[in-house]
């Protein structure tokens, strides 16, 4: 790796286009993701978020435009891109018949790590899966499966990680666990590109947010920058009712409750389809 590659953004996308038959999904997408940052690609179902991720992870060729990941162009040097990334797809990419530990060891072996067993045990502990390590994944809950899925993506510490809708279908607790894991990643310097249809998820996690709509990035910036696109907030008093999620988390008593603030709409998280109408929390109005 040259020093130039280090200074470049971790992900650089210019004029990306992709069509499926007559459906023009991407109509010229431009993106820059800084190293070590969490970047959220926000969009409703069918906006083309997954298409962007598939192109960046070398699973799909674009019709036009360029994209480079960790300094390597995805079209001409896909092998080098694959050595720098990890993909956690929309559908959990775990082996149901193997145990959680065997899944991690499998990935560690394929990444040619020296002590696959130790790597697996560390990740199991980090994602609170140690107790379930010896059980087949088919017995896992949705949240556990997703955690294992993300843990598998961290094997070998790839510098860039793609998370395609990491919390779709998770319960509130599962969401908070995944969020904590993502924050932990960024703290260690990993670049994370995540796609989501939950506005609050982008708000909670991302350093920068891009909104993908109609095949283009229609807005991009930090949360504060995006907020300036709207007229200045007026101060009004809104009684803050506890959300169902607040109640749920208070009753079941989870440690990660601080992550739940502003996580309205999570009760709809089970059905991914209906969840994109989620709006920002009422308490945000006073910000």
């Amino acid at each position, binding site marked *: 790796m040259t020093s130039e590659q280090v200074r470049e953004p971790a992900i650089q996308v210019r004029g990306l286009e992709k069509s499926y038959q007559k459906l023009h999904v991407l109509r010229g997408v431009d993106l820059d993701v800084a190293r070590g940052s969490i970047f959220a690609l926000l969009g409703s179902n069918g906006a083309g978020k997954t298409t962007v991720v*598939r192109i960046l*992870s*070398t*699973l*799909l*060729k674009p019709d036009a435009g360029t994209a480079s990941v960790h300094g390597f162009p995805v079209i001409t040097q896909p*092998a080098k891109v*694959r*050595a720098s*990334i*990890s*993909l956690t*797809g*929309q*559908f*959990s*990419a*775990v*082996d*149901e*018949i*193997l145990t959680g530990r*065997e899944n991690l060891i*499998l*990935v560690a*072996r*394929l*990444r*040619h790590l020296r002590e696959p067993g130790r790597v697996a045990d560390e990740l199991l502990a980090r994602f609170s899966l140690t107790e379930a390590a010896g059980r087949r994944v088919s017995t896992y809950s949705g949240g556990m499966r997703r955690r294992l*899925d993300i843990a*598998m993506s961290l094997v070998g510490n790839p510098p860039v990680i793609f998370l395609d809708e990491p919390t779709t279908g998770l319960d509130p607790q599962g969401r908070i666990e995944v969020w904590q894991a993502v924050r932990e990643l960024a703290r260690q310097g990993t670049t994370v590109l995540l796609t989501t249809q939950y506005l609050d998820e982008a708000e909670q996690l991302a350093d920068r947010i891009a909104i993908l709509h109609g095949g283009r990035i229609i807005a991009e910036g930090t949360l504060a920058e995006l907020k300036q696109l709207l007229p200045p907030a007026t101060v009004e008093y809104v009684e803050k009712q506890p959300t169902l999620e607040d109640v749920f988390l208070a009753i079941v008593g989870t440690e990660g409750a601080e992550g739940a603030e502003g996580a309205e709409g999570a009760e709809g998280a089970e059905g991914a389809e209906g969840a994109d109408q989620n709006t920002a929390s009422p308490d945000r109005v006073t910000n």
Partner: protein
Amino acid sequence: MTTHFFGDTVVLLGRSLRHISRSPDTIITTAITPITMLLLFVYVFGGAIQTGSDNYVNYLLPGILLITVASGISYTAYRLFLDLKGGIFERFQSMPIARSCALWAHVLTSLVANLISLVVVVAVALVMGFRSGAGVLAWLAVAGIMMLFTLALTWLAVIPGLTATSVDGVSAFSYPLIFLPFISSAFVPTQSMPGPVRAFAEHQPVTSIVNTIRGLFAEQQVGGDVWIALAWCVGLLVLAYGVATTLHRRRIG
């Protein structure tokens, strides 16, 4: 990356072999159809079939072995389909490993699984009175032809595995393969068939393979049949491999 090709394939092979060891029913169901046919034809129809040999089990076994493989390879299509349907195939394809490793692992798994099924079927045939004076070389030749046949059919099975849209569709392709031996010399001599059927039977791959294996078991000269059999197997292998890898490449972009 190619330096790791074999190592990575072995790791993935270990994964699918673990699948088989955790659901040994796939081996049992593979062996059960051919064993049922063996029982049915030897003890029910066999008495009425004139083959010119005194031991019908000996006559029948080569065709039954081919049916074993034809039913066994549908599991390759099935396992590959499941990998594609979940996300694990995409995970492998986005990792720094040779992309064909994932296919080769399934193909080698099929070789191992079918070998086990074949051994089970031969063991049952031995109990039913199958006898052969064939030497080690002849047995190795039989094993070699069966492996080549399995390899060719497995690559054929990769095609529906990559293209099927439903679980039902993925295994349906193997039914014609299972019934192909019926219109061949596998169960009855082709001389007993009417003209056009006989012409088809004598010029389709199963007959030459069956005749070759039958000859090897009976310690006879196998002559031209062995070359026709090998040509069919290699031809099918090359064709199926070409189509399967093209589809695979197209699928992963």
